[in-house]
């Protein structure tokens, strides 16, 4: 298969659909989503979803309940195969890839309804994310060879380093399922991060967190972007978080993008206020 490389054409295209035309304009986009859509039976859950994300931007995807936000993430991670459209990761067409391949290509995610390996320890959850970075054969595993020892020791240290991002190294050996809700969400972010992604998708990372946890999380997300130099796309209903850290925002309503732009533009967009922000205040 010939992968389309990002040439002049795509770059202009990128400027046209980008959430942030100025920022990263010189760099090639890491994620180009083109006309992505999916139907469930008669229901069009997502339609003509087109955005482009730069390699180190933090972007937000917002919209009312049932707008199709999580479905977009499921499309980007190939939990669902799209009915229409495709997306390019680092210039590579992802058509035909499955969930595993898309992660290996560089997209990692968290889940709205947390999906940790509950019965395993916190450290092991992170180590599972590190799996492809731990190198020893099945023989090494069965006989615990020196290779095994060395690689496991490195993985252990790397896991603790990652846990340090959220000050969680102290309960590396706690059962993941026994953690408080907020800590479970943070652990899921670390597990995704462990796979060394280019794009990190966070589905409602602040859900269930109290205001102080949320503000810590905002700081951490920015820190993660700065340290790992990755693109972060997040779904969130907490407007303080979204407006506080997202550089670009796309608004989804009934599966359709109704607005794209900077937080200021979004906040003053009458369509968005009508469909989402206004209604939110009444509630």
């Amino acid at each position, binding site marked *: 298969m010939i992968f389309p490389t990002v040439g002049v054409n795509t770059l202009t295209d990128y400027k046209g659909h980008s959430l942030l035309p100025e920022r990263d304009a010189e760099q090639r986009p890491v994620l180009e989503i083109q006309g992505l859509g999916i139907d469930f039976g008669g229901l069009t859950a997502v339609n003509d979803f087109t955005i482009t994300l730069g390699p180190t931007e933090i972007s937000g995807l917002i919209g009312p309940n049932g707008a199709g936000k999580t479905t977009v993430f499921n499309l980007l*991670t190939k*939990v669902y195969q799209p009915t229409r459209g495709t997306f390019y990761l680092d210039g590579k067409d992802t058509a035909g890839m*499955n*969930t*595993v391949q898309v*992660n*290996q290509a560089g997209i*990692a*995610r968290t*889940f*709205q*309804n947390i*999906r*940790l*390996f*509950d*019965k*395993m*320890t916190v450290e*092991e959850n992170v*180590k*599972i*994310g590190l*799996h*492809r970075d*731990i190198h*020893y054969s*099945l023989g*090494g*595993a*069965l*006989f*615990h060879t020196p290779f*095994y020892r060395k*690689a*496991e020791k490195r*993985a252990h240290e790397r896991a603790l380093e990652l846990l340090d991002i959220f*000050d969680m190294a*102290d*309960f*590396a*050996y*706690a*059962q993941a399922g*026994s*953690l*408080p*809700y*907020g*800590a479970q969400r943070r652990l899921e972010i670390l*597990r*995704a991060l*462990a*796979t060394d992604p280019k794009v990190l998708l966070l589905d*409602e990372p602040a*859900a*269930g*967190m*109290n205001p102080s*946890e949320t503000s810590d999380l905002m700081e951490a997300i920015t820190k993660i972007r700065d340290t790992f130099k990755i693109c972060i796309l997040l779904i969130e209903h907490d407007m303080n978080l979204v407006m506080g850290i997202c550089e670009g925002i796309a608004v989804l309503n009934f599966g359709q993008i109704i607005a794209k732009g900077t937080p200021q533009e979004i906040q003053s967009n009458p369509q968005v206020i009508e469909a989402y922000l206004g209604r939110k205040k009444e509630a």
Partner: protein
Amino acid sequence: MNTLMKMTKSNMNQYKRSALWSYGITIAGFVIVSIMVSAGLISNSLQGQLVPICAYISLAVSLNLVVGISGELSLGHAGFMAIGAFSGVIAATLFQSLPFLWVKLVIAILVGGLFAGVAGVIIGVPVLRLRGDYLAIVTLAFGEIIRNVLNVIYVGLDEKGLQVSTSMDGIHLSEQGSMILNGPMGATGVTKLSTFFAGFLLVMFTLFVVLNLINSKHGRAIMAMRDNRIAAESVGLSATNFKMTAFVTGAILAGMAGALFALNYSTVAPVKFNFNTSIFILVFVVLGGIGNITGSIISAAVLTILPEALRQFSDYRMLTYAIVLIIVMLATNNPQLKALTAAASKQFKAKFSRTRVYKRPQKADEEMGGTK
């Protein structure tokens, strides 16, 4: 919140701790029984059970790898045991001129494991694409197919070499030749090679392989796949590879145990490896606790001895056996009893270990209600 979340670090990982228990119990059991045997404290009929007990422990531990660790209900474990048994017997006969008994036994066990492993790959490819009940039914079918195929296999050996056929008429042996496998009659005239010590070593080997596998990146991937397939795939792990690793390793170990088992008798018929045997092994795993390796060791040993110990009830033996099983199952699933043992083990842990079990605070549960 942060102060609530503090917890003491454990200095040994949970797998190492449970591995020590498994090895410890096996070694202690072997030493105690050996002493009792030499002191003449164990009846002849029970002594005859020592090798089968070792074989059943290996079978239970290897099935636990498939059912407990990998999370796939396999109902055909006796099929792999059968392949290991008969290929092991053939290998032992082929190499009967070798000098040492234990060399022949080791070769037979390795050959048994190899053939069962090959069968594991062949069966695993289609079966592991299935889920849940379907997988269980298909493994059951494969187990029965293996037994039925063995029912029509005739193998003879003379100075010209091995002869294999699906009927007695297909085999033409010379004067010095002899039959190894006789279809439904199975293997006859087997030289007894297995010893209690060999059985003990096989159990130790099985534990070594299974426990090491669990405590490795492969084992973590296998358990991740079991606990949450979508999450595991989202971090780049593909399901069939790891399920296959567990399934084939389980098959190899079952084959080795089968060879040990068969070489303990002078005759072994395919009917010994029917669906009942698969279910018996599964009962060991379930009673010992799914995913609990130490539990599998204890329950396989106890439940193999039990029918022997219940001999005095003669006619009511199997009835008593069934009643004991039901009582144990009810007891282990009784919430009050569970709470009681949990409380006891918590106290024990608080006193003797530095590990703490983290309890989710009430508040976190309330927060959870706020979102969907």
